[in-house]
């Protein structure tokens, strides 16, 4: 039986339509340009007003290994990972396994040159003769594989009912000012759509209908949003060393700076340095922060470990710095292109001795942008390194979000003394707690006053910044730094708390896991009412203890093996430690609502 005959074979009658509620997994070979095709699909749904989210599940490799793109279409607006209903099988090496992973009633849309595709009676199969559809198209050989991927875009457009003009708009948005590329790609989409219309019969229940749920929203990656936030936070010096998944943060930052940060003469009002390693990147950031410029670096776990010594220095010498840690899977090189929340315990106390850092946890595009600028205010107000913990899922994937609110507050530069202020005060002691909040005053190099200078060192010092090994000087200094950390509790963003009036059970989480948890919470509303506290920063404020106190049990859900945040919260809330339960998940993939629901129900039944 030919592929076409097989496809046309009698299948069960189509079930009730499933409209705007399904997941697609596109399985392709890394390096074949499938990202264009996948983003075209994503943007097409988005343009039709349907909530959508895409996750790139890719290998640490340039070409040849398997890669998947998961698109979730959800009329209800859920964006967490959901196992696929529809498979685009364009990778021969994974096709068998991918097909077996589909649920009954699923769809397999496959490239006709795939051999030995497993045949299941409970699936709908649609062939796509991608190579044949390119026949006669005059494009360079090297671009043919890229264009072949557009064939599944056309076939899916037919299958789901996506208007071709929407696909054209999505393509045009992607290839601004490159009409030839738009036309070539669109031609393949049209051919595939026409071929499918003429040769296939729709057997599956999935389709889309335009909605009005994405009007006014933007589609962006978390790394782009964070970088844009940093630009509106006044970042002036950025130094980094390439590492996935932080690289796209710096690429975006460089682009936005070049566009947005120039003086009247057109000169840049910023400097970006690709450092020789993460040690140097951290040193550049501290040097710039010390001298009065807002400075940041972006890295991931392995890079963060190299920055530890400098961050310890920054904490002790009290120098503002911002570090974006786009978390990936460890330990060590781990799974470098997969997501986790495995750095939180390490980041919180990054350094040696008694070191503690404020940490911000963005969980959406809006928070990536907001924390992008707010991190600088905090770092300068507190005169200390501030870490922003994002992750690969949030950072590198495309998310929907509301357009960002322009920062409502002016830049907060902290306690910096000018020459005039020094004159009035008759000098200053660099490390003296004048205001009782643990935050001393500082001067910037270049301040034209004979009393401005002080000496910065990572070794013991007294209030006048002189070297000191006196026990009372050290004890006073460390006590003040602890006091400053207490001040940080008031300055960092408070958690987002959503209480359910009947909930006996609470959930605490942070970052990108919120989407799976929110979906699980909604679906469990009748069966197991849940309150949700989304932590937005460390150190915690009083809200967290109050939240735990108000519930019988509180589950801390996170993407790491050992329940790192759970450990931190138990230590910070010893009086509530018995109520805090860990639900930790780690296999490299983003969390699903199904896992959260199953685990919560299982735990609660056992409780």
């Amino acid at each position: 039986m030919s592929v076409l005959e097989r496809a046309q074979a009698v299948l069960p009658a189509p079930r009730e339509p499933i409209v705007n509620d399904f997941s697609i997994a596109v399985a392709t070979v890394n390096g074949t340009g499938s990202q264009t095709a996948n983003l075209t699909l994503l943007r097409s749904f988005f343009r039709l007003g349907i909530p959508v989210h895409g996750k790139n599940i890719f290998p640490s490799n340039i070409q040849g290994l398997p890669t998947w793109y998961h698109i979730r279409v959800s009329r209800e607006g859920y964006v967490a990972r959901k196992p696929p209903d529809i498979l685009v099988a364009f990778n021969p090496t994974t096709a068998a396994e991918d097909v077996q992973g589909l649920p009954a009633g699923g769809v397999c849309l496959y490239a006709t040159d795939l051999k030995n595709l497993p045949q299941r009676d409970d699936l709908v199969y649609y062939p796509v003769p991608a190579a044949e559809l390119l026949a006669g198209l005059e494009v360079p050989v090297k671009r043919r594989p890229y264009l072949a991927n557009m064939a599944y875009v056309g076939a899916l457009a037919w299958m789901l009912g996506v208007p071709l003009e929407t696909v054209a708009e999505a393509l045009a948005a992607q290839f601004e000012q490159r009409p030839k590329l738009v036309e070539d790609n669109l031609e393949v989409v049209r051919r595939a759509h026409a071929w499918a219309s003429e040769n296939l019969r729709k057997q599956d229940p999935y389709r889309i209908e335009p909605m009005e749920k994405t009007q006014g929203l933007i589609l962006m990656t978390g790394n782009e949003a964070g970088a844009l936030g940093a630009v509106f936070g006044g970042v002036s010096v950025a130094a980094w060393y390439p590492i996935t998944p932080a690289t796209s943060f710096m690429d975006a930052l460089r682009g936005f700076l070049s566009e947005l940060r120039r003086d009247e003469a057109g000169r840049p009002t910023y400097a970006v340095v690709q450092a020789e390693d993460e040690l140097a990147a951290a040193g550049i950031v501290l040097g710039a922060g010390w001298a009065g410029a807002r400075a940041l670096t972006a890295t991931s776990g392995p890079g963060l470990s190299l920055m530890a010594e400098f961050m310890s220095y920054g904490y002790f010498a009290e120098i503002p710095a911002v570090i974006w840690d786009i978390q990936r899977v460890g330990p060590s090189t781990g799974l470098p292109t997969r997501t986790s929340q495995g750095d939180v315990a390490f980041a919180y106390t990054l350094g040696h001795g008694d070191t503690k850092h404020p940490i911000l946890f963005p969980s959406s595009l809006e928070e990536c942008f907001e924390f992008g600028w707010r991190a600088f205010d905090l770092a300068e107000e507190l005169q200390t390194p501030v870490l922003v913990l994002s992750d690969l899922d949030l950072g590198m994937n495309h998310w929907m979000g509301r357009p960002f609110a322009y920062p409502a507050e002016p830049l907060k530069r902290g306690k910096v003394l000018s020459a005039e202020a020094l004159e009035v005060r008759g000098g200053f002691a660099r490390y003296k707690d004048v205001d009782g909040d643990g935050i001393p005053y500082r001067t910037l190099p270049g301040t034209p006053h004979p009393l401005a200078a002080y000496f910065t060192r990572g070794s013991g010092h007294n209030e006048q910044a002189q070297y000191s090994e006196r026990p009372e000087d050290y004890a006073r200094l460390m006590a003040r730094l602890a006091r400053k950390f207490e001040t940080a509790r008031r300055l960092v963003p408070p958690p987002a708390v959503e209480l359910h009036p009947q909930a006996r059970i609470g959930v605490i989480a942070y970052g990108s896991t919120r989407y799976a948890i929110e979906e699980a919470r909604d679906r469990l509303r009748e069966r197991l009412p849940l309150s949700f506290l989304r932590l937005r920063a460390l150190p915690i404020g009083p809200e967290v203890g109050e939240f735990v106190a108000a519930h019988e049990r509180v589950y801390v859900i996170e993407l790491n093996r050992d329940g790192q945040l759970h450990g931190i919260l138990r230590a910070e809330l010893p009086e509530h430690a018995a109520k805090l339960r860990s639900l930790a998940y780690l296999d490299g993939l983003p969390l699903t609502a199904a896992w959260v629901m199953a685990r919560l129900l299982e735990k609660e039944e056992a409780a």
Partner: protein
Amino acid sequence: MKETTPLKPNAVGLSKKDYDGAPSTLCKGCGHNSIASQIVQVAYELNLKPHQVIKLSGIGCSSKSPAYFLGMSHGFNALHGRMPSVATGALLANHTLKAIGVSGDGDTGSIGLGQFKHLLRRNLRMVYIIENNGVYGLTKGQFSATAEEGLRLKYAGTNPFPPIDLCLEAIVAGCGFVARSFAGDARQVRELLKAALSHRGTAVLDIISPCVTFNNEDDSPKSYGYGTQHEKPLHELGFVPPAEEISIEPLTPGEVRLVELHDGSHLRLRNLEEAYDPTDQMGAIRRLLDAQARGEFITGLLYYNPHRPSLAEVEGLGTPLAQLPPALMRPGPERLEAVLRRYS
């Protein structure tokens, strides 16, 4: 107390004493102290405003030095070997500051070799002084990467490895001002320091600065005795400030060379060695290797190239980034809207 410090104010109204730092805690007779005193002298003579100077260091005996000069300047005692990155950040934040970095041979030649080389690649505008004694003093007597092969030290034994010549490393890395001197040769150190402060990019001064405690036997090439007996200057140096009229002493033509520095000052070189040309990169490398092979201790301006732009020039920086007004740091709401439109 015997008063030797001239109290006469310089052009910016400061006496030499105003350039002092804290009392040194280094060993009595340490070469680093004499370098610190030359920095004080030079800063006074060049009329530097202390608030416009930053002094940076890494970790080690040498790196303590910045505490001992220019007490009215901001100082930064960084991590071991990683002062270059801190200096890079500080000078990107404010490229109008004058930076004096002090490092040691362990700091620069071992843990910091990577940062040192990359500092030179980027050509940060700063004076980078290596107080080089071939030994780790603060950890009490281990060999550093610049210790000569075969050197015997009381605690460390015999050094089996060849030294890293930091001047060669600097020249190879593209540094435009590379000089070697000897802490016991105060005049040469002083003139080189002045010229280094006027250079457009990174100026490396590798100053042999004997360790009186762990490496001062006369047969050690980094001891006082050896330096005093074997120093072989390539030229006599004289610094001519920008405002001063340049006069060529009546010497045989060809013996005197004037090197114009970035700020309009000049370095007058009277060649002691026939036809030594400090602008010839290959010649400088050859001469250093030749000296190494012969066990010679040559000093002076080894290599000079004023043409490479400094990092701040490459970056095209105008107003110091640390002094930007808020309006230049945060673009307006309309700019944000314009960006977001592209993502809708």
